[in-house]
């Protein structure tokens, strides 16, 4: 795999005069070669957004690349797209606290809490009906209730006419959509509860966003939080005017990765992304680090919540709980110093001791982070040569964060990760040196760090130009943006992204996804990209509409519109040949759609 990275570096010759392949040592010279003004605009849009939309190139040219970058570094100065706000409005769990999320959606935790009388059932009638079902199942399983499953409170026949029921079952898609839209608001909840589950599933793509969410709540309530998150992530990537901020939320979530399907993290992740990651992506690294260390999502994911000083097992009873080193290790290896950052196994244990007592409340009690002094190891610790005196409390862990956040190894590690994501897989050492200096000089000011990188000659060099492969998320969102497609149902796109190898919020390992190209280049993934391009351009995706009128009648011009530059010779030839074949076979064939699909699935479009 390593050897292929070298190929990636000289690929960037695509839009430049042909070069003969030389040894890898000469590749650094490409980072000294400056891009033309036009290429700079494309490059900035490719790297700092989820792909240009029609009109973006002209706009950035008008503002000037450097001024535009400065604006993106200050998202608060950019007016947000009102369409985005409309799309996010129905996704209620995005705005809830953890405790509200837990109380609102039927989950195994909630079933238990309600069964034990610790919590009231949810207010929402659909959620309440689902919870009642789950409670019943819970009781049946426990053998405490042998009665038949619940019947819907109001039968469907009392809510809709026979004609309406027939339409819901067997009508055309547009008839179903119209009928769903015609059901009054005060009746829709009862209708949804009364529908059989398969029918609910079939109606999801045809319903309005609000009703669709209700249908999901009725069928898979435990999926709803993930649904809201995934839809929001896609709508933001597609529509937000603050594109760099969204790229950075993606980068830092991945850096401090949490896996949503690990138990309680199912309802902890919304707040994690919203309150822990998002506010700090252009702030101070130390604040971001502390926010993650104080987050129940991370403490649960990396098990620190159950890490206890060995002699401090609760109530003195024999406990299998003790010191858990997971968080301490990943904190140094993945979050700060990097694997070669110069720490030892002894440091891991000492850091773990410092973080004993950083735990979370029971899910029934809101699942919030709290520091429990009774579980804390009070002894003296030595971390990376610094003595942390005995008798400390929560400040032991805070001191560790201070040491790590200001460590030169951290400065290098973070700089390199960012440069790998935004510049090239093997960024030049000189750039990393300059970025590390900025990091140390500004005490980890992430906006300054980004500025050093984005103003560097390396960023605007031939070595960086088209040197990266789009991630699945970027490929799919860039296709939507380039075609100007209307999206009214983003969730199926999230499933597609998962099939291409990047399930959103579902990277199991704390490493997150690699920032290197090799992560994304495999047969199955490439095939998935081509099939997605075809499905999008041919309007076969549920809830996504492409206006074929936007495509030019000339296929090569269509490719140019979507690639924002000239197609490579092989891509152009293949498109022209395909068009000629189509014309002889069927003069009325949907030529612009096929040309668009070929452009979006081409090697050219996979690069950025």
């Amino acid at each position, binding site marked *: 795999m390593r050897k292929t990275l070298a190929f990636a570096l000289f690929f960037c010759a695509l839009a430049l005069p042909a070069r003969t392949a030389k040894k890898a040592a000469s590749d650094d010279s490409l980072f000294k070669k400056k891009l033309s003004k036009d290429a700079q605009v494309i490059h900035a849009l490719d790297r700092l957004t989820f792909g240009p939309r029609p009109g973006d190139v002209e706009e950035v040219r008008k503002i000037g690349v450097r001024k535009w970058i400065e604006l993106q570094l200050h998202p608060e100065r950019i007016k947000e797209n009102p369409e985005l706000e409309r799309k996010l409005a129905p996704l209620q769990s995005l705005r809830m606290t953890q405790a509200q999320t837990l109380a609102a959606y039927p989950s195994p935790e909630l079933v238990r809490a309600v069964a034990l009388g610790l919590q009231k059932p949810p207010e929402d009638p659909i959620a309440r009906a689902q919870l009642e079902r789950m409670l019943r199942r819970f009781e049946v399983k426990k053998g405490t209730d042998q009665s038949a499953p619940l019947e819907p409170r109001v039968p469907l026949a009392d809510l809709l006419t026979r004609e309406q029921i027939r339409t819901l079952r067997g009508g055309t898609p547009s008839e179903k959509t119209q009928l769903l839209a015609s059901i009054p608001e005060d009746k829709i909840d009862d209708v949804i509860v009364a529908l059989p589950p398969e029918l609910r599933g079939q109606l999801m793509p045809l319903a309005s966003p609000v009703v669709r969410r209700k249908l999901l709540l009725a069928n898979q309530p435990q999926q709803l939080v993930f649904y809201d998150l995934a839809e929001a992530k896609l709508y933001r990537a597609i529509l937000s005017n603050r594109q760099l901020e969204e790229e950075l939320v993606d980068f830092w979530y991945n850096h401090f990765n949490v896996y949503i399907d690990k138990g309680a993290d199912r309802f902890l992740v919304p707040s994690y992304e919203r309150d822990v990651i998002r506010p700090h992506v252009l702030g101070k690294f130390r604040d971001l680090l502390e926010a993650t260390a104080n987050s129940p999502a991370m403490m649960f994911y*990396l098990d620190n919540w159950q890490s206890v000083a060995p002699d401090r097992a609760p109530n003195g009873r024999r406990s299998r709980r003790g010191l858990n080193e997971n968080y301490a290790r990943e904190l140094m290896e993945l979050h700060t110093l990097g694997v070669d950052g110069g720490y030892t196994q002894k440091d891991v244990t000492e850091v773990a001791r410092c973080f004993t007592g950083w735990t979370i409340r029971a899910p029934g009690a809101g699942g919030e982070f709290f520091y429990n002094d009774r579980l804390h190891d009070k002894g003296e610790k030595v971390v990376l040569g610094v003595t942390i005196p005995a008798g400390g409390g929560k400040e032991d862990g805070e001191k560790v964060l201070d040491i790590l956040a200001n460590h030169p190894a951290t400065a290098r590690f973070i700089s390199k990760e960012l440069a790998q994501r935004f510049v090239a897989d093997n960024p030049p050492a000189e750039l990393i040196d300059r970025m590390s200096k900025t990091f140390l000089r500004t005490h980890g000011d992430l906006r300054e760090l980004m500025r050093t990188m984005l103003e560097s000659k390396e960023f605007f060099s031939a070595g960086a130009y088209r040197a990266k492969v789009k991630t699945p998320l970027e490929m799919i969102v860039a296709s939507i943006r380039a075609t100007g497609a209307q999206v009214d149902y983003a969730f199926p796109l999230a499933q597609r992204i998962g099939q291409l190898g990047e399930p959103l919020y579902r990277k199991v390992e704390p490493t997150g996804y690699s920032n290197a190209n090799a992560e994304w280049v495999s*047969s199955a993934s490439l095939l998935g990209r081509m099939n997605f391009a075809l499905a999008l351009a041919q309007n076969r995706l549920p809830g996504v509409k492409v206006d074929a009128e936007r495509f030019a009648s000339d296929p090569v011009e269509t490719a140019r519109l979507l690639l924002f530059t000239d197609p490579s010779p092989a891509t152009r*030839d293949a498109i022209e040949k*395909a068009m000629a074949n189509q014309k002889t076979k069927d003069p009325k064939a949907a030529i612009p759609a096929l040309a668009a699909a070929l452009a979006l699935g081409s090697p050219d479009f996979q*690069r950025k």
Partner: protein
Amino acid sequence: MAMFGVGSTPAWLSRALYAQDTPGPRKKILVAIFQRGAVDGLNVVVPHGEQRYYDLRPTIAVPRPDGTPDSAIDLDGFFGLHPSLKSLKPIYDSGHLAIVHAAGSPDPTRSHFDAQDYMESGTPGRKATPDGWLNRALPQEPRESPVRAVSFTADLPRSLRGRNDAVAIANLSDFQVRDAAGALSFEEMYAGAIDKVLNGTGRETFDAVKLMQSIQKQPYTPANGASYPGGRLGNSLRQIAQLIKADVGLEVAFTDVAGWDTHVNEVGAKASVGQLPNLLANFGDTLAAFYRDLGDRMADVIVVTMSEFGRTARENGNRGTDHGHANVMFVFGGGVKGGKVYGDWPGMAEEQLYEGRDLNLTTDFRDVLGELVARHMGNRQLASVFPGYAEPRFRGLLGA
């Protein structure tokens, strides 16, 4: 990802596409099946010679072998198969099925998520391992097949992630460009691309697509009258058999089967009915169908099963079992010295149980997998397959 030389056709492909009469040396194949949810090993391979087993499980134990369909099927006078696994008994008797009891991961976690992750990464206790054991198990060889590592799952599992190309395919028929004109153009486009990375992978992709199409020209009929039961596991193993017989360079295959988390009503009124018995019947019948279908080809193939941890020795208050520790693994196929239950039996007395509640561990799962990787697949670099566990203690599961 492999880099093919321009214009040359790899041997595995020409063999598959043009049906050459001179087959290359057959590769050894390892098939791994993960039972997600923690199967109750004590009710799968029953220690019927252990009185404590019956003391601890008054309502859900499998009765001692008495020849009826609701009692254990005796294996060696001490262990017996669950009656729903009766189709595995002939394989055991023929000496091709080995069982390893009290095996599993030494990590104490009882979290499904963590334990599966540790078992699939092959590094218990270490979360940041970026890849999976089965991917690392592939020998490093140039010009390998693009379908040398296949998972019959929706997403690529942890076990198969890593530097060697591996594909997840739910169904062989899905592996294609769904538009004939588009497929042709994409192939030309990628073949002509000067982008070396995408050019190389593009070629591999279309080679693999052709391969899958050639395999599916005729509908697949299992051999020797084998009949796969319905369900996802049967579908997966039938397609794995299809790939193996097509000689397309498959080396490792993976699939999983869920539903083993039996906290409540594990068995019904009799040992042969209920939740676990139903799952086991499908599981055993599927494995037996695969064995039968492959016939002589089984000589090159070994199947191994695993599950993240076992379940409590004691039954709980809901006629179920909770998360435990050691478990049972099945190994069957060519070269396996079967007809035997391997592993040291730790006993089930109070002080013999792990933390006073679970079956203790006497065989690390890496001892089993390591032996298969080294002696079946011929990859002796175990230090890189199982980092931090360089010298597994082989149990002698494979013949000389």
